[in-house]
Structure formats: structure tokens, C-alpha cells
């Protein structure tokens, strides 16, 4: 039964999708941004990547709406970014706070991943509470 449904869905939607291009582009730009320490590319690329993953999963019918996936991915980015920062600063909160002013590129790269997570989180909140809320009364 479930397989039948999936097959129908695949046949109906199989020929065109706008998302694969952007999943690939987001990953490529994000990777270059993080490794080459070009922070705007890191944040923009990762946001595009997370957004496209949320979009493609919704389109394929794995999720109802994209926002929860986006929230989960933003959590992953914040956690990953913090891990990178912590490798350089140690785990004390004070050290992490003072690292905000750091010029160390590894710390900054970590923060750029955290930043991408925060932007994705904002997008997911906006999407869930504004886009899905329907027209303003």
C-alpha cells in the first residue's frame, strides 16, 4: 500500500525538481566558505544547503512542511560550529565569549557555521509562524 502510494508519487513528480541544483550549489559554496575562511560564503552556502535539503524533503513527500527539518539542521550547524570553536578555546563559557573578539581563523570559521545555524533557525521560525499562518486578518 505504502509502496503503491510512493510509486504514484514518484511517477507524477519524477521529471522535474528545482531543488537538486541548489542542494549541490549550497554544499559547494558552503564548503569553500568554511575551508577558505570566506565567512559570507560559508554562511550563505550553508543556509542555502539547509534550505534546499528542507525543500527537497518536502517536495519528495518525506515531510509535510520544510520548517521542522530546517530547525533540526540549524541545531546541527550550531552544534558543529561550537565544536570547532571549542577545539581552540576549551569548554568554559567565558573563553567562548571572549573568543568572539578573536582573529583566529579557525575560531571564526566555527562561528560562521554557528551563524549559518542561527540564520536557518530564524528562517524556520519565520516560515512556521508567518508563511504558514496564512494571510493576516
Amino acid at each position, binding site marked *: 500500500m505504502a509502496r503503491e502510494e510512493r510509486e*504514484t508519487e*514518484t*511517477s*507524477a*513528480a*519524477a*521529471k*522535474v*525538481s*528545482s*531543488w*537538486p*541544483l*541548489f*542542494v*549541490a*550549489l549550497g*554544499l*559547494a*559554496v558552503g*564548503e*569553500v566558505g568554511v*575551508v*577558505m*575562511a*570566506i*565567512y*559570507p*560564503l560559508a*554562511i*550563505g552556502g550553508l*543556509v*542555502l544547503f539547509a534550505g534546499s535539503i528542507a*525543500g*527537497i524533503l518536502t*517536495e*519528495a513527500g518525506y515531510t509535510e512542511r520544510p520548517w521542522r527539518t530546517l530547525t533540526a539542521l540549524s541545531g546541527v550547524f550550531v552544534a558543529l560550529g561550537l565544536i570547532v570553536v571549542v577545539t581552540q578555546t576549551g569548554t568554559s563559557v567565558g573563553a567562548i565569549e571572549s573568543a568572539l573578539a578573536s582573529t583566529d581563523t*579557525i575560531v571564526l570559521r566555527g562561528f560562521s557555521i554557528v551563524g549559518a545555524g542561527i540564520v536557518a533557525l530564524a528562517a524556520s521560525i519565520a516560515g512556521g509562524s508567518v508563511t504558514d499562518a496564512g494571510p493576516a486578518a
Partner: protein
Amino acid sequence: MAGEQLALTVLMGVFLVGVATLVSRMENLRAYTPLVSGDAGYGDSTATSHKPSGLIRWLTTVDHKDIGILYGIYATIAFVWGGLAVMLMRVELTTPALNVLGGTGTYNGLLTSHGITMLFLFGTPIIAAFSNYFIPLLIGADDMAFPRINGIAFWLLPPAALLIWAGFFLDPLTGGAVGAAETSWTMYTPLSAEQANPGVDLMLLGLHLSGISATMGAINFIVTIFTERSPDVNWANLDIFSWTILTQSALILFAFPLLGSALIMLLLDRNFQTAFFAVDGGSPILWQHLFWFFGHPEVYILVLPPMGLVSWILPKFSGRKLFGYKFVIYSTLAIGVLSFGVWAHHMFSSGIDPRIRASFMAVSLAIAIPSAVKTFNWIATMWNGNIRLTAPMLFCIGFVANFVIGGITGVFLAAIPVNLVLHDTYYVVGHFHWIVMGMIAFAGFGAIYYWFPIVTGKMYQKRLAKMHFWISEIGVAVTFFAMLLLGYLGMPRRYATYEFNGLIAPLAQVTTLHQVATIGAFIIMLGQLIWVWNLTQSYLEGPVVEDEDPWNLKETGQYSREFEWFGEQLDTTDEDTPTLAADGSGEPSDD
């Protein structure tokens, strides 16, 4: 600096807004041109008529045939890039001194780019072009199991190529601050870890993306072949090409993630101050182990599907079924398994334990057995057959002949004593070029000609195709025999110049052989120009194929699924439309 970052941030923001707008527009587009509900399988011409038009169609397609065509075009562009790079190198090598290229660094950059481009950006994608287009047709599937993942896998490749080639573009823009990577395709540490050039990072990132792409494709093919077969296709009658793609996909699944991990470790060493491959850390030899544990299976990732193509096409023009079908499959599987046990034969002269060396020599020599099984089966298939020397058949026969030379020179190299003498000489270069150009590219050409009518609905120019074969075969023989001889004379590989002391090698003979190799390379280039011309002109102006069996396969009972599908397409194609709806060339009709 802050200004630059700000400008980039604004640009990135504008780009993201642009993407959001574009995506919302495309979503609308899908809403008002719904695809046919229910069955959109083959033979249903409306399924392909509802694709968006123009560029948007190609940017958004997840149809396996369209993606196959995209892979093919991409691989051809990469082939041109890699070919031009090597022509510059060959011209430089006509004289011992450096007098064509600006410096040895340029030569090193071209060398690196040529190797990586041909293996990762031409070899793997050209195989994916055939498998994407034809595996679903051959096994009777509607499409790949994961069409969107198929799309992602392809779209990772253009950024990968741009990153791998980035050093060449950025060199003039940055005044030499970012240059082409000079690591060679093997990226051996400590050289690759210590070159400060950011172009190396960009290349590693690009390579990493191409690895992700290959892995996604492999997962897709494994699932497709296991779960999407038509009910009448079972393991006993699964076609030989699908078998090789299945084996190749398994190899990719085990090999490419390892390359990805090793590349990330190298990137971390370069940018995040780790010490995986440092002399006082994990050791540079660790890189060689990790790289070749990927690198040798990569050889079979590249060669098994072409072997499958030849096993598929060669019987069609021999008028006989493939001799020993089962044993060809068994040897494919055997090669697949053994390929993971031979990696250290690339490291015989690196000072590893001699006992380990001996075991790797034994396994490497053992691979000759399944390889020879295949060769004898191809020859036995042709034996007493009704051979028709069409262009695809010529390339298949050339493939077998070149494999004998490329393969046997490989057996010599697998023997430790011979290897220690010939290691890092042109003999090795000659050996693997007989394989990659003489086999992999030749099988690709053969398959392109064989399936040209299906993909384009047109027929190629047969005379030009045969000229392409003969010129290429002569070029291959001239170029790569010269390289084998250069290796015997002790000419080391990877050098831009060879003004060495006459006591090391006879300089006059070495110079002559280099010149012969360069002439051979020009002959090969001439052949490929004819190929590109033939395909382009035939696609635009060639005669429309109206016969569902253009190769007369029905006579020998070898009419197969992909041509059956082609026949169905011919039946359903509008007579006014000169090319097939499925070929990816026609504008979508409104019916």
C-alpha cells in the same frame, strides 16, 4: 578587508533572495503544468512533453535520460580541457629544455589538472552518462530509484570542476597569489600538505565534491538495480552492462568515502593545524596507504563498466551471444573483490616491509586471471562469428587489443623486481595510458556510436567514425609505445625538462622518443576533432533513423530492451517532429 567581506555578504544575500524567488517561480510552474498522473513510464510520450522549456528544463530535470545527456556533455567538456592540457605538455616535451611553457610550475599544474580531470571529471562521468541513460531502459525501470538524488549527484560536478580548475582562472586575477595546484593527481604528502598555495585547497574541495557525487550515484544504481527491475529481469538474465555497473557501484561505495575522509584529513592538516600526515604525526606513508586503498579500486571503477560495454556491444556485431556469460560476470566480481587487496603495489619502492610487498605482488598477479578470462571470452565470442566491422565494433576490437598490451605491461609492473627498475619511469605512464585511453575511452567511443541513434534519433557519418577509430588507434600505438620505450631507457615521469647527464640515459634517443610521442598525441587529437565534428554535425543534420533496429540485431536474435524502447518511441513520436521527444533536444509540445 572588512569592506570586501561586507560586499560579499551583500552579494550572497542578493543571491539567496534570487534563489528564493526563482524557486518560488518554479514551484508555480510545476503547479500549472502537472505531469500526467499515474503511469509516466516509457512509451507514454506525454510524460516527456510536459517538461519546462529551454534552459530551465536542463537545470531542473530529474529524468534519468536528460541527466545522462548532461553527464555526457559535461564529460566531453572535461575531455577537451584535459586534452588541451596534455597537448601543451607534449609540445613542451619535444625539446629537453624548457622553452614553450612559462615555467616548470605551469607544467606541474597542467600535469595535475590533466590527471585529475581525465580520471574524475571525464572517466567517471562518461560512464555515468551511459549508466544513467541506459540502465533503467535495460532493466525495465521507469527511472532511477532516487531521481532527485540523481540530480544532486550531477549538479555537484560543475562546481567540482570549477574548483579543481580554479587555480588556472585565479592565477591572473590574484597576481599569482592563488595558482594551479602542483601536487600531481596522487597528492602525495608532505608535498601536498606543505604547498601554501590556496589553489590546492580549492582542488581538494572540488575533488571531495566529485567523490560525494560518485557515492550518491553509486547508491542510486545499487538500489535501482536491486529494486526497480521489471518482473521478467532476474539475476540470471540481467544484462552484462548492469552487472558491471552494480559491481562498480559497490567499489565506489567502499572506495570513495575513504578518499573523501583522506581529503578532509589533508584539508585539516593544511588549514586546521592537525598532523595526520606530518612526519612526526601520522606519517606521510599513511597518505599513500589511504590514497591507494581508494586509488587502486578506482582503476577498476573506471575499467569494469567499459568492459561491460564491450561485453554488451561486441556480441551484437559478432552475430553470436557472449561466450561464457556467467564466467564474465564471475570474473567481474572477482576483479571487484581482488581490487581491494592490491593497493600497496603502488608503494613497492617506498620502503614498506618486504613480506607485505610479496603478498601484494601475489594478489596483483592474481588479478591477471579474471582479466584474461574476460579477454579470452571476447576473443571466443568473435571466433567463427559473422563479424561486421561497424565503428562500434572496431572500437571494441581495438579495446581488446589495447587491453592485451596495457594489461600485460601491468603484469610486469606487478612483479617487485621489475617494478623497482621501472618505477616512476615513463613505462608506468605508457602502461596506464594503454588502459585509460586505449580501453576506457575506446569503449566510450564505441558505446557512443552504438547508441547514437537512440539518444539523438539520427545516424552518425560512418566513414568519419571509422576514420576516428583508425586515427585514434594509430595515435595511441605511436604515443604509448614511445612511452614504454622511454621507460626502458630510464626516463623519469612528471618532469617538464630532461636535460640530464648522458650517463643517466641516452639523451638523443630519449629526445627522439619524446618527439615521436608528441606526434602521436597530435594524431590522437586529430582523431578526436573528427569525432566531435561527426557527432555535432550528425546530431544537427544527420539522417533521421526510422528503423527501430538500425543494427539489424533481430537477424541474430540479439534485439534488446533499449532498442525495443526506441521502437516504442518511434511509434509514438509525432511525424512532424524531426527528433525524438526523449532526446532532450526538442522544444516541448503543447499537446
